[in-house]
């Protein structure tokens, strides 16, 4: 019943298209991450779901209740959803318990039921004993937990999280990530998690929606997104993919086909319906390269090495096409230095199914 369905949502700010026909189905109890660089429209999408802005086209429904369309707009206070804000948005003039109790008070829940549920929510986020504190006296992580408790105490069918970890320092992020994940398991609430951090999205989400310039580029599980990006933008954005032009040489067989790339033949994963000939783009990851003897594979000159702790990130340029920059991981000690020529073998890769729109 809590299924969130966004159907061809459009939003304009003046002549700027902030949401361009975005459609997204979120299953009941699912954890979806909306991933994209700043300005990609992910926050606009969140504000549409929450109802802070009005939609210019398309519609948003939860279950069978129409929340937003160009004609109809249910105000946020009647949507029965929860939000954890990036800034936490804790009310400074109330203590922790009052912050958490607010939604219950509004809904007409009275003590002792209200007190019981506030205590349970605080217990759930591990803040028992903090009820009387003012938000100003809490650490960033504690504030985040209060915000979470406040949003979950009313048991909303859908929770939106707007970059909830962006204001926390690195080691706190890891533990909060774990907390969110545990939380989602325990409550089974549908969650839409807005973030620009792909590691966060990968670690948490059941599925990830990648957005760019107001468009939804791909919606897939983290593994599929990484292994089989739908287009060049996703391929380049996720996992630091390298996109190279290639020529198709064979028709797909058991999910693989032959291509010619950088002057050598290689076998790539591909879609079963991939055409058997013509030009295509392929996506390679650093680990798809293996360093071989100089006279084998693709000859490339080492540009620079940067130490990453335990291994080097190596940037190389193929001798035959020196404007292309490739990067790969080389174990310590470094097998070659800047200026040296090495050989490269491509062990894996993915034929990008959708041609690059910009090309």
């Amino acid at each position, binding site marked *: 019943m809590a299924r969130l369905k966004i159907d061809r949502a459009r939003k304009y700010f003046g002549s700027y298209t902030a949401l361009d026909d975005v459609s997204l189905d979120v299953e009941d109890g699912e954890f979806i991450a909306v991933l994209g660089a700043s300005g990609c429209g992910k926050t606009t999408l969140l504000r549409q779901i929450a109802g802070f802005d009005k939609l210019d086209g398309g519609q948003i429904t939860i279950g069978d209740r*129409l929340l937003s369309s160009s004609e*109809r707009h249910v105000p946020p*206070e009647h949507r029965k959803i929860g939000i954890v*804000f990036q800034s936490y*948005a804790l*009310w400074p*003039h109330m203590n922790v318990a009052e912050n958490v109790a*607010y939604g219950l008070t*509004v809904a007409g829940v009275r003590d002792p039921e209200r007190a019981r549920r506030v205590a349970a929510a605080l217990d759930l986020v591990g803040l028992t004993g903090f009820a009387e504190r003012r938000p100003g006296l809490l650490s960033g992580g504690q504030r985040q937990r209060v915000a979470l408790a406040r949003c979950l105490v*009313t048991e909303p069918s859908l929770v939106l999280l707007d970059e909830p970890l962006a204001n926390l320092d690195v080691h706190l992020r890891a533990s909060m990530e774990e907390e969110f994940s545990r939380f989602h398991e325990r409550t089974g609430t549908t969650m839409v998690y807005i973030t620009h951090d792909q590691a966060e999205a990968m670690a948490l989400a059941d599925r990830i929606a990648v957005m760019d310039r107001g468009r939804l580029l791909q919606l897939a599980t983290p593994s599929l997104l990484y292994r089989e990006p739908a287009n060049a933008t996703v391929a380049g954005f996720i996992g630091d993919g390298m996109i190279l032009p290639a020529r198709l040489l064979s028709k797909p067989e058991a999910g693989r086909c032959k291509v010619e790339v950088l002057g050598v033949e290689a076998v790539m994963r591909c879609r079963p319906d991939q055409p058997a000939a013509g030009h295509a783009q392929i996506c390679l990851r650093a680990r798809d390269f293996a360093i071989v003897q100089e006279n084998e594979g693709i000859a490339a000159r080492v540009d620079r090495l940067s130490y990453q702790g335990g291994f080097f990130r190596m940037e190389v340029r193929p001798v035959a096409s020196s404007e292309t920059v490739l990067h790969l991981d080389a174990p310590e000690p470094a097998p070659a230095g800047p200026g040296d020529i090495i050989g490269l073998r491509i062990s894996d890769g993915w034929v990008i199914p959708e041609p690059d729109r910009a090309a």
Partner: protein
Amino acid sequence: MSLADASTTRTRVVETGLLWGLVFLVAGLSLLPIGRLVFEGLAPGGQLSTSSLGKVLASPTTWTATANSLVTAIAGTVLAVLLGGTVALVTSLTDIRARNAFTFCFVLPLMIAPQVTALAWLQLFGPSSTLLKLIGMAPALGSRNPLYSREGIILLLGLQYAPLVFLTLRAGLRALPKELIEAGLAAGASPLTVLRTVVLPLMTPPLIAGIALCFVSSLGNFGIPAFLGIPGNFLVLPTLIYQRLAGLGPGVLSEVAILSLLIGVIAMAGILVQDFMLRRRDFRITTTSSAARPFELGRWRTPVEILLWTVAILILALPFLGLITTSLIPAFGVPLNARTATLANYAYVLFEHAAAKRAFVNSFVMSATAAIVIVLICVPLAYFIVWKKSRLLRLLNMAAELPYAMPGVVLAIAAILLFLKPLPLLGFSLYNTIWIIVFAYLARFLVLGLRPIVSGYLQLDRTLEEAAQIAGAGLVRRLVTIIFPLVAPAAVAGALLIFLTAFNELTVSALLWTSGTETLGVVVFSFEQGGDSTYASALAAVTVVVTIGLMLSTLLFASKLPQGVLPWRD
């Protein structure tokens, strides 16, 4: 779609109802009175006619008063700019000490009623000056108090409004990025060259804004020309209107309406000139950064500090001392010494004089009512202006500025025109009740509350409201439980500003009061006009003490306020 949830519909009804309620309220407080006045000017008594207009424009008194108004306002503004501008530059750009204390003292005259300033300065000079007698320097009996003159009015207008120039310029200097000054210094320019070639040109907008504000305030000032001009029959437009209305009654309403429109037109002209001058050049500052590091005055620091404090003492402490000494003598002209000193004047105005006692209650109740009602209007109003970005209310925001930008007599006349006749449907008249004064206060001081509350909103993180909305709280509940507590410091500051201004005002109530609805300003004025300078001084001294006390009390919560909300706080 017609199948909107009932609760959604209810929300929309509440929000739309509140919005339109505010629109009507603000329009009623700003556009209605000004519109009524313009109507009276075009059609006196409801009939299109130019006879009143011709009569007023043909009268030589009109043009003498207009010329006097222009001369005193312009000369007063020049004085205020020289004094306020210099002090602003010195206090903002150099490393003088005790800046906060000095700002407080320098801005103080602005918060003290002009009629009290006038009264205090009158006590300082003249043959009966208690203070001069005390040190044996009083001029010979029968000689004229030099302040009863055009020059006296100009001097006091300049001193009264120098803080306005100081405040606008100071706000501008604070926003000036330090890189611009440092770039000039790095290019090899001396501090004075940087001041002349970089700082002053960039400070043109605040300076011009300050000049316009100062001009309009001087033009509309009633207290100073009333105390200094009326005795010598030197009339400016506000005092001319007052005399006409006080002498001849509401019968001459059409004529005074035209006179007040004349002031209104001059004030508008001043504001338009300001707009025009600011549009000619690009003054935009591109970067924002911390305030400039002050120039070190070195060995000049102590002399400059002494000079500044001397100025502060001259324009603040000395007149107040004049006021106090006069309030302590049993009768005007008696020298002050240990034997003659008495608190009888205070006892009289506080406990015996019926009108003075009433005035305390009236001024307190009317100012407090105005302050509270305006805050209650402005918190939701600013919500729609700042967060809902309602275009309608943005226009009304400008309209709300109108009654305050206009000289007070203009609004007072407009209020008389509106309320002289019984209200339609209700059948009773507000004229000659305290409600007409309360209405005028609401209209005139609305913007004093709106500005700090709007800046309070601008400082708030809107997600605080959105979090409450997502939690299911409707607009009214959000306003009460979330927004009001969060903008409370700004709202209290606005309320205090309104209270202090209304508590000390005379311009509006001088035209609207009647027996039983006297304000403190009116009673001080009546005492002085009746020759009871000792009572007037005692009462004025009490209002000054109350004012300073309330100003100081704001310093308790000043740290919670957006910068620039309280004029007297640095």
